């Protein structure tokens, strides 16, 4: 499993009205097999951090290392799960998974059928192999997305608000599936979300982001057994703690902007 090291990461975007600093000098470490949530309001740079880890974006300064290797030099063996499933609409469920399987080698790999059956079983989609994306529901598409991430047997799972577009019932089901899969395999997970309940349900540690430019306001460790229970007293206490940090950082942010102006 992978471990991650982020040192003094800064990301600036060039916009029409000058450079925009989205991530401001953050550093953290994530251990092997750890489940970490990046939690913050919209536009706080969580996804940017994730994409810097994925190598989709390049850091303006600072360094991101996965397994001790700078991401730019690394051949990614990650599973990335997007908010929308981003499946190829002209391929069936099975063919989409085949694409991911063969992507790296560029040719058929051994045990294709078995591996596809396995991951589809994992996300409860057995029997939907021949369906196209427009024939299955949004929640199912998300599961195909998760299956695609798992099928390459990645050491690291990067998830960018994967359940944000789903209804709460479906999201709860998928979260439970995610947790039970994680308990079995203990892959390292970095999970971006703006949902406090979700973060508290899932994570070993929560990194709470401040509004732009992003810094990490606080890191909260959750030492509760899994599967956790929504609405339980322990979980509620932690949610309150997270909310407290949020409100503090928001008022500090307001004070800072007031000082600046």
């Amino acid at each position: 499993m992978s471990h991650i090291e982020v040192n003094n990461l800064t990301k600036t975007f060039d916009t029409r009205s000058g450079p925009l600093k989205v991530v401001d000098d953050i550093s953290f470490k994530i251990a092997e097999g750890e489940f970490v949530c990046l939690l913050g309001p919209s536009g706080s740079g969580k996804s940017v951090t994730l994409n810097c880890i994925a190598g989709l974006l390049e850091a303006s300064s600072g360094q991101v290392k996965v397994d001790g290797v700078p991401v730019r030099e690394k051949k990614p063996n990650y599973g990335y799960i997007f908010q929308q499933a981003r499946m190829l609409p002209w391929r069936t469920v099975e063919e989409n998974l085949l694409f991911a399987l063969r992507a790296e080698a560029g040719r058929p790999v051994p045990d294709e059928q078995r591996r596809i059956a396995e991951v589809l079983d994992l996300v409860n989609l057995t029997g939907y192999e021949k369906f196209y994306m427009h024939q299955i529901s949004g929640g199912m598409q998300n599961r195909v997305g998760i299956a695609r991430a798992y099928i390459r047997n990645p050491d690291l799972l990067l998830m960018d608000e994967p359940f944000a577009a789903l209804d709460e019932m479906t999201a709860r089901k998928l979260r439970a599936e995610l947790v039970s899969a994680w308990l079995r395999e203990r892959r390292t997970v970095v999970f971006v979300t703006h949902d406090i309940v979700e973060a508290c349900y899932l994570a070993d540690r929560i990194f709470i982001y401040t509004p732009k430019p992003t810094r990490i306001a606080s890191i909260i460790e959750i030492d509760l057994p899994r599967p956790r229970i929504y609405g339980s007293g322990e979980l509620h206490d932690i949610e309150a703690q997270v909310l407290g940090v949020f409100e503090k950082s928001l008022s500090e942010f307001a004070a800072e902007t007031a000082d600046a102006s």
Partner: protein
Amino acid sequence: MNAAGHILVAPPAPPRSWRNFDFKWLIIGACVALVAYLALMPLGFLLWQSFFTPQTAAKAARFTFNNYITAYSTLETLTLFFNSVTFATGTSIFAFLIGTALAWMNERTNTPLKSLFFALSIIPLIIPGILFTVAWILLASPKIGIVNLVLQSWFHTDYVFFNIYSMWGMIWVDGLHYSSMAFLVMTAAFRSMDPSLEESAMMSGASVPQIAWHITLKLTWPAIFATLLILFVRSIESFEVPALLGLPVGIHVFTSSIYQAIHHYPSEIGLASAYAVTLLLITTVGIYFQSKLSSQGSKYSTVTGKGFRPRAMDLGKWRYVTASIFVVYFALIVILPFLVLLWSSLQKFYAVPSMQALANLTFDAYQFILTYPTLISAVGNSALLAVGCATMVMLVTSVICWIVVKTKLPGRWLLDNLASLPMVFPGLVLGLAVMIFYLNVDVGVYGTMWILFIAYVTRFMPYGLRYNTTSMLQIHKELEESAEMSGASWGTTFRRIILPLLKPGLLAGWIYIVIVSIRELSTSILLYSPGTEVVSILIWELWENGQYVELSALGVMFIIALFMLVMLAQLVGRKFGVKES
């Protein structure tokens, strides 16, 4: 009681001003009638003429199939068809490959200087086709072509390396000429492409060639096919290249054959019409499928990329190779043609560059051109036609566009199609159709500037419509409604609300039409008469007279003038916030 009654009774409503009402329908009616007239009359007469014998003073026109029989019974037509299709296919594929490769390098790699290249990519569009062709004759003709001579002296041989007077030569020149159009279209396609699927494939570990093959190609194929079709249509209707390069060695295509049928004595209008109708059929099919494809282009677009642009590929050392490809391309398409024209314009008689010829540089040709008897009138005619045509087109199509986009008038789709109809007319065919019409309907237009004006307005109507539609779609109905609620008449609303809001689009379209009408040759070539020459016709005449040196001088000045016009237009555009379309 009485007083209260007075208050309650509304004053008698003034009769609805008949002038306002009439005015609206008068303008709309006039525009509709004008569009229908411009689009349909020439087409009707072209079809009619192709089935009739020419009308003369002695004989009335008679119905006949002879034109089509003459056209289709000979083996010549088969070769004509074959040549046209070969030429157009070759040109479109060549232009497409160059344009796409350049667009990919420009959009998806980290090639140095690429933003400069993009800024320069407008320049090839400025150079008129006839000058580009002449320049390439000077560069690659078997006897005097500079490229041939240089290679021959290098290798001490008299082998002819490039023969521009051949099918390959024609494809080379026309393909290069249209490659900049392919570049712009494909750049737009690459830009509007949704990167989300590529990203997810990349996260699955797919390599760049795999992503290109399985995803990028799959997503862009409607754009690819539509671009190929429009390039095919543009090249099958191009006239300058086949006329200058094909005719001297007997390679005939439809456009050059139409020109020849009219220009040899006695002219065979019927035969020309039969060819023209055939060509029209081909372009109509092409344009039809092209518009079908472009409208379903977004079939596979899924989610819009979340802010991050597709990242540029790091080419490593190869980026210097791609940068030099840019430089070579720019040299082939702008620098070499311009330099060879400049060189030729400074000679007394055309001579290949040499130290001896360098000593004989002279401005005689420029003096000749500047004192050329018809120069002043030709420049005046060109300017008048361009400005008049652009203004007319933009105003008329703004009304048409308003009807099509904003009203629920029954049959407005027909109006839209009518105004777009001239799109399928090759310039030469339109010229022929307009010529036939005004030869038969004597309203005193034939032989005057008006016939050119009418032909230009018809030809550029679809462009005006497209520019106006883009901006009209962005204007919301609320403003019009509130103007109406405030009591403004339709005329006032149109003049005070719609036209000002359309201004950026109007201006951009106006500038575009000015530039393309100044360059226009194929429409004008069958319609001009002594006294109504335009600048591009003047160049054509110099070519026919064999005055290459003088032609080059005129060409150099023409290119510089057009260049300055475009720069001015961009300056004005930036000032008024014209959006690039």
